[in-house]
């Protein structure tokens, strides 16, 4: 499968990655090779096979609706690149 510049740019938007011109060429090749390679799965007849998202048949794992956490703000904000007024500070999201 040929990967176009548009595809790489589009995936870059989805994945929030910005590639240099050189990286982009490499990425096109790598992705194309890899997709050709994994295309091997098309040899498999999977018509009557159910997609297996969870390997073991475990289900219904729940918590009870009881508050167990207190105020941990100080700890959590320790790693924030930028902080203000007890909030994580980010470039503006409003026009």
């Amino acid at each position, binding site marked *: 499968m040929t990967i176009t510049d548009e595809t790489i740019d*589009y995936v870059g*938007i*989805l994945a*929030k990655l910005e590639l240099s011109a050189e990286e982009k060429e490499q990425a096109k090749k790598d992705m194309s090779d890899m997709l050709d390679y994994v295309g091997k799965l098309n040899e498999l007849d999977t018509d009557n096979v159910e997609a297996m*998202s*969870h390997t073991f048949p*475990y*289900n*219904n*794992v*729940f*918590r*009870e*609706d*009881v*508050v*167990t*956490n207190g*105020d*941990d*703000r100080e700890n*959590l*904000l320790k790693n924030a690149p930028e902080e*203000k*007024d*007890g*909030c*994580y*500070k*980010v*470039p*503006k*999201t*409003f026009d």
Partner: protein
Amino acid sequence: MSKAYETVIGLEVHVELATRTKIFCGCSTAFGGAPNTHTCPVCTGMPGSLPVLNKAVVEKAMAVGLATNCNITRNCKFDRKNYFYPDNPQNYQISQLYYPICRDGKVEIEVEGKKKFVRIHEIHMEEDAGKLVHDPYTDSSLVDFNRSGVPLIEIVSEPDMRSADEVIAYLEKLRLIIQYLGASDCKLNEGSMRADVNLSVREVGAEEFGTRTETKNLNSFKAIARAIENERERQIDLIESGEKVVQETRRWDDTKEYSYPMRSKEDAQDYRYFPDPDLVPIHISDEWIEEIRSKQPEFRDEKRARYREEYQIPDYDIDIITNSKKLADIFEDTIALGAAPKKVSNWLMVETMRLLKENVMDPEDIKFTAKNLAKLIKLVDARTINGNVAKEVFEHVFAEDIDPEAYVKEHGLATVNDEGALKTACEAAIAGNSKAVEDYKGGKEKALGALVGQVMKAMKGKADPGSVNQMLRELLK
């Protein structure tokens, strides 16, 4: 402009579920905490943290599904919806796409006497995002994750509505069902109920749907009605001028009364949903469904019928009272404490409604208890206080849920039953108002009112008007 157009509307309604904790962690869902004080590694997307599902969320979602005639999905799963935004700490939202918990429901609405069904496509569970606040000092945004992970259900209707009135009737219907279930307080203005409007237009008689847009950020019924009208006109204008409606998401600006497209170059709207491997499937058994079904409350229609039969109050009152779960609860509880239904209904219909309006409150915001309303009614019944005093006391009951008995005692508001004092006051009023006395004796019944007023004033409002009336008539014989 000779063509006639039909508006086709479907709704995506988000409802915040009234659980104590968030959907995937043990943080409180309480409103109003300082920023980020209700957060933990899970709801702030810290590396290595893992979600564990709150059982109450599943049960509340099932309850709403059953009340809206949905099929419950016996094996449902959570999926990840991937998109980058700072209020979305993992940059994926845990939601349901492939196996939502409820499907294929319907609710009946009534507009101008005409009944119709609005079909529900599905109801799914998901987590809410955090809150972004613009910081004008640094021209940046500040993220508060207190709301991040608060449980939501999204109720997706089929495109079955044709007008703003139908939309509002549908929303009111959902609100009532959900409030009756106690699954949410459903406040549009506080965001615990939010509606996104999917709208398209087509020529009357056309079979195909037109291209639809989705309008977000609608915080009131008024905004919804305005946005629907606005979007309908916008689409008709486009079609009439030979342009195409673009399928897009638009944001409503209620102050400017227009909407604008939200999409940017960096927003591909390709959410790459896939089953969340951190959560295991939910298997819902017949027994579990029956258990939830058995706990369903009496809904509005059933209540109306019962009130009519049991309480003999006007249909108008029944409609108002049952339009709020809170009012209905107070009504029933007060009656259970011994008050006469008609009297309770009067307090709710007149004074309560007046104070709600004055304070710009919803019935759901009512703070007073049935216990104190019942006590107040008892005080009036026993003629311990008169009607005017009762109204005054009720204002305090309404505002602070005070105990009326204690309040009346403390403020000396009880009716004065001292015959001597009453007689003295009446005699003074007769002596000081010869004109009114003359008029009364001349046959003007109304003139007595002025005398009663004088006596009440002299008694500082604490006399029983009936007794005053009677005493004056005696004296003027």
